[in-house]
């Protein structure tokens, strides 16, 4: 095995001739493909660019303890029945894994698509859904999993054609053709090809209701969401009342998240954004009293129950605390809007 050299050490190796020669050799080879990329090459992560802050900050380690029970969640069954009897045009685009022993680790969905990940011991299985418009770009990106690029191995996923590529012997991904305005990518790790293919057969397309029903008990479904948001706000209101600065244009709070952590980040983040924007505006105007008011509101963030509950699961609360500290020091935090995913 080569020694684990640091880049510094590598930079000091006597390779100048070889390094220069390789550069010239490469540039003397023909250019095969010079079309500009329409999406970043790291395909899958591109959809996180818009809500990048939320994606980056909303780290989580959701300690989901709920299991699928026997492996057949109530939603899974109804969803499966619906699909089995409906070969006609699909309406559902979300998929769940309907296999024993697999635990939901994480779910995230927004207007760009969604992600549902499962774990079983060291194995992982991730289901992503995206709007159909991005299909070609992702396929092109995945073609480069292999060198030279390839169209992947044809497989079938949920009765539609799909292409499969192997990142390694135990890490495979498949992209299913668009249907119902969306397409699916399914990636399995820690398992061989046969096990992965077997799991593809355990996927079920489900509607929104069945999807929510298949989530663990800790997840907040659509019918519970408004109450959950109100509860979060009530907790914050104990320390900041009114919850948002006077004069704010915000009308209510909303979220399309199912996961308590993400939901909490949406709501607490929106509150923090309002006060940070208020502070920035006051700072520009030189309005010290207004600055103090905003700083005082943000200074209570460490006491907001929702953030305290989220602390064990990720770094989002820390991000808000950090901004609050900067505001307390009289500074407008640089990049806070991107950092927290503030709207507008």
């Amino acid at each position, binding site marked *: 095995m*080569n*020694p*684990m*050299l*640091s*880049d*510094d*050490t*590598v*930079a000091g*190796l*006597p*390779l100048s*001739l*070889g*390094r220069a*020669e*390789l550069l010239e*050799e*490469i*540039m003397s*080879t023909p*250019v095969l*493909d*010079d*079309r*500009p*990329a329409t999406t*970043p*090459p*790291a*395909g*899958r*992560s591109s959809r996180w660019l818009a809500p990048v802050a939320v*994606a*980056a900050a*909303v*780290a*989580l*380690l959701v300690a989901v303890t709920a299991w699928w029970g026997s492996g057949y969640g109530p939603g899974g069954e109804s969803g499966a029945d619906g699909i089995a009897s409906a070969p006609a045009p699909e309406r559902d685009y979300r998929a769940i894994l309907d296999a024993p022993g697999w635990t939901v680790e*994480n779910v*995230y969905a927004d207007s760009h698509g969604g*992600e549902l*990940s499962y774990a079983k011991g*060291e194995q992982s299985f*991730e289901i992503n859904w995206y709007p159909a418009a991005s299909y070609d770009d992702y396929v092109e990106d995945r073609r*480069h*999993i292999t*060198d030279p690029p390839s169209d992947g191995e044809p497989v079938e996923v949920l009765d539609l054609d799909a292409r499969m590529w192997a*990142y*390694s012997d*135990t*890490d495979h991904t498949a992209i299913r053709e668009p249907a119902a305005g969306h397409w699916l990518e399914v990636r399995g*790790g*820690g398992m061989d090809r046969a096990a992965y293919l077997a799991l593809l057969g355990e996927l079920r397309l489900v509607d929104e209701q069945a999807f929510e029903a298949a989530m663990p008990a800790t997840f907040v479904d659509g019918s519970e969401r408004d109450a959950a948001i109100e509860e979060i706000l009530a907790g914050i209101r104990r320390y900041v009342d009114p919850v948002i600065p006077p004069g704010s244009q915000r009308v209510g709070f909303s979220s399309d998240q199912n996961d308590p952590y993400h939901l909490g980040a949406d709501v607490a983040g929106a509150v923090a954004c309002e006060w940070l924007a208020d502070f920035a505006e006051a700072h520009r105007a030189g309005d010290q009293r207004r600055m103090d008011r905003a700083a005082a509101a943000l200074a209570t963030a460490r006491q907001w129950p929702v953030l305290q509950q989220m602390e064990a699961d*990720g*770094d989002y609360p820390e991000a808000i605390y*950090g901004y609050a500290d900067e505001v307390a020091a009289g500074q407008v935090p640089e990049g806070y809007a*991107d*950092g927290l995913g503030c709207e507008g």
Partner: protein
Amino acid sequence: MTDGREETFRRLYAAHFDAVLGFALRRTERPEDAADVTADTFLVAWRRLAHVPAGQEQRPWLYGVARRVLANHRRGDRRRTHLGERLRRELAAAVPDVSDGVVQRADVTAAMRRLSARDQEVLELHLWEGLEPREIAEVLGLTTVVVRPRLSRARARLRDLLGNDPEAGGHVPSRQPQLTREERP
């Protein structure tokens, strides 16, 4: 147009050659293999220059390419090109003489080998390349939401094996100041 392309590539090559070669050296058996992985990685970058992102996303993108090249090499698909012959020779001569300047202690490397491949990979990118979860996500084609808990779990497992946190004693920072910056939340 061609000149502009060449200039862009020269800059890319100059900025990231050591990092890509270091990435390859830390993951291959022989210096010659690392030279091949480096040559193939930059060949992909040359051919797909229009796809290479700008700024700080460049290095994770190159690592992502190198990772796929490496996977092909491991499958036995060695030496797709015959580029970099001199680099192979120079590297084969130079590497065995180096005994310090390594990124981590041998016991940490041994402990990491006991983890799953998935845990190993995120830890390597974090400890060896100094990448933050967002950059690891770029390399692996995953989202940060997936990478962050995975990294956290992998670190905990490694800590359990070692009895301490590997970064405390084992990590000698390598030269990626622009990549070890604090991640924006």
